[in-house]
């Protein structure tokens, strides 16, 4: 019987990998697979185990238990230099005493002894790819942060690694450069089709670049899915609030009919939602509504659900306006509106109607994050 882990199309496979630091379990029987050419992101808050996972894949840390295969072959005991990986560090870790050329050529020279002509051709190709032609004679300290980042990428890619590891590679850049490099990395990934594992705590990076996102928490993967799917159906309230913003609420199931639940909030507001299988009549039900799912209207409107609310705060950001609202029994709601240029904005204290449909209600498995203040949408890190 063929071993499924021997599939060469499977670039990386972690099975039951665990790691404990000083009696603290950092990774708890983690399973993870990356297919050839896939861009997978480990997303989570600090301390969730995402960097530990990356370092175990790189061979810089050894796990306490579990199995790891690279391209279908057991890699648990391989030293880092034999794993055929490329890695971009948070600090980029360029060799400051080597020129850009020597930095990029380093891996080629260490993994064999190609002729000078071959090295030159490959380094030139990489400089072209990361759009840094002409920089080969410079030292890293003579380059801007964005350029150093590009050199680090070129150095990691020049050997044609099976898997590219990116450890918070953009966190040292300013906001504008970060956006630019997100697009750059995505472009390079699409050009080379190199399997990539990104570690980040930024939902924006994860959403923009990934084929799949694995949201980690407490040493486990809580949800793994493509970006759109994870946003639309996060399943847990943690994932729901970590990927995107959400108004998470808790109610009680009043009626269940053909997969649709009627939920009542403590103060009498009610709504219907697609029911989760574990929901029972009279039981608790957690759900979320994304800020952009609310339509904020000045007066009575026709919609499946209409809640009346009062504007408590307004954050104007040009293209979008965020309203903080209080409805009866739901004192901390957030709604995102796209105002027409020159259109009227609602004032603090003004009464408005919040309209939404059944499809806007995201059923959740838990209400842990219920009532937690929605993070401001200015979040960029």
């Amino acid at each position, binding site marked *: 019987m063929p071993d499924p882990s021997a599939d060469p199309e499977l670039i990386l496979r972690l099975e039951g990998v665990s790691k404990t630091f000083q009696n603290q379990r950092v990774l708890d029987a983690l399973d993870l697979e990356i297919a050839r050419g896939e861009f997978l992101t480990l997303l989570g808050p600090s301390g969730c185990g995402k960097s530990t996972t990356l370092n175990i894949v790189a061979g810089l840390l050894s796990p306490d238990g579990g199995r790891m295969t690279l391209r279908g072959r057991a890699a648990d005991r391989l030293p880092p*230099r034999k794993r055929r990986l490329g890695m971009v560090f948070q600090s980029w870790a360029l060799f400051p005493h080597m020129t850009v050329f020597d930095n990029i050529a380093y891996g080629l020279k260490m993994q064999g002894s190609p002729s000078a002509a071959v090295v030159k051709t490959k380094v030139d190709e990489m400089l072209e790819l990361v759009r840094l032609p002409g920089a080969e004679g410079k030292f890293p300290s003579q380059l801007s942060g964005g350029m150093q980042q590009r050199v680090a990428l070129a150095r990691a890619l020049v050997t044609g690694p099976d898997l590219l590891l990116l450890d918070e590679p953009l966190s040292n850049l300013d906001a504008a450069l970060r956006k630019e490099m997100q697009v750059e990395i995505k472009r390079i990934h699409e050009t080379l089709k190199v399997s990539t594992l990104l570690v980040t705590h930024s939902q924006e990076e994860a959403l923009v670049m990934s084929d799949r996102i694995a949201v980690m928490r407490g040493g486990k993967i809580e949800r793994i899915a493509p970006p759109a799917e994870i946003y639309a159906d996060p399943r847990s309230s943690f994932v729901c609030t970590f990927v995107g913003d959400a108004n998470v609420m808790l109610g009680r199931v009043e009626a269940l009919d053909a997969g649709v639940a009627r939920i009542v909030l403590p103060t009498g507001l009610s709504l219907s939602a697609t029911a989760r299988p574990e929901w029972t009549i009279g039981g608790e039900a957690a759900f979320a509504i994304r800020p952009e799912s609310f339509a904020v209207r000045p007066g009575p409107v026709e919609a499946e659900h209409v809640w009346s609310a009062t504007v408590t705060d307004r954050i104007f950001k040009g293209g979008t306006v965020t309203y903080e609202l209080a409805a009866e029994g739901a004192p901390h709601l957030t709604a995102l509106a796209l105002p027409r240029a020159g259109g009227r904005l609602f004032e603090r204290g003004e009464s408005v109607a919040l309209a939404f449909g059944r499809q806007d209600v995201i059923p959740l498995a838990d209400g842990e994050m219920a009532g937690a203040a929605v993070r401001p949408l200015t979040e960029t890190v």
Partner: protein
Amino acid sequence: MDGTSGLRRVAPLLFIAPVIVLMAAFFALPVADLLSMSFQAKHPEAGAGGFSLVNYAKILGDLWYWQMLGNSLALGFCATLTSLAIGYAVAWRLTHCGGWERTLIALACLLPIFVNVIVGILGWYILMLPFGVIQQALDALGLIHGPLRWLRSFWALVGVLTYEHVPFAVLILAASLQNVPADKIAAARILGASGPRILWTVLLPLSMPGIVASSILVFSLSVSSYLVPILITGPRGQFIPISIYSYAAELLDWNMAGALAFILLVVVVVLTYLFIALSNRLTRRGEWSMV
């Protein structure tokens, strides 16, 4: 003019004034005196003025002194090499361990500095005697037969000088290795470099300032050491400091002693300069800075 700006310009000088005064009184003046003495014959012929090259002619024209200089430099060279090799390994361990191990290494480095030099040397003396602890143990194991005359050898001297100077090398090198970021080493590992190649291509160039500083310190201390050679090899040891001492204290020929001392000083300064220049060229220092 503006009084405060004048004060501001003078203030930094006030801070270094004590050092300048000390250096002038106890280093520059004596060296200048020594230098002028070395250019005078001990027994100037009547009518000949003060200036004479007779001491230098005597030294440079005699193969004996050239051999002695060679011995001293070889000693400094070997002691520097062994001190740095051992010191580098210990410093690496020191920067990558924690808890009790760190304390132990730091203590082991400081103790030889606290122990009186002569006591330390006599300890080695006892260890290396023909019927000392080491030789008896080796003899009992059947590894050597009969006593060996280590004590007065060149290598015994290298060993004791290494023991004396390793602590300084460790402390300087540890400070330097601490500044080499761990992720640069991790990057080299992932890019396919083996341990020795990481050492050669990343670690050594990035810790070069510490290597240069500790080399200069160990080399100049070893070349000019008097106590160690006089206690280990005795007054017959052919090393410049022993000769300087015997000219100055026994033969009362300060002029020859001055000339020898000055030659040693010049040779050490020139070698140090060449070493710094070479290491700067090899690591292209000054063109890059740490990122």
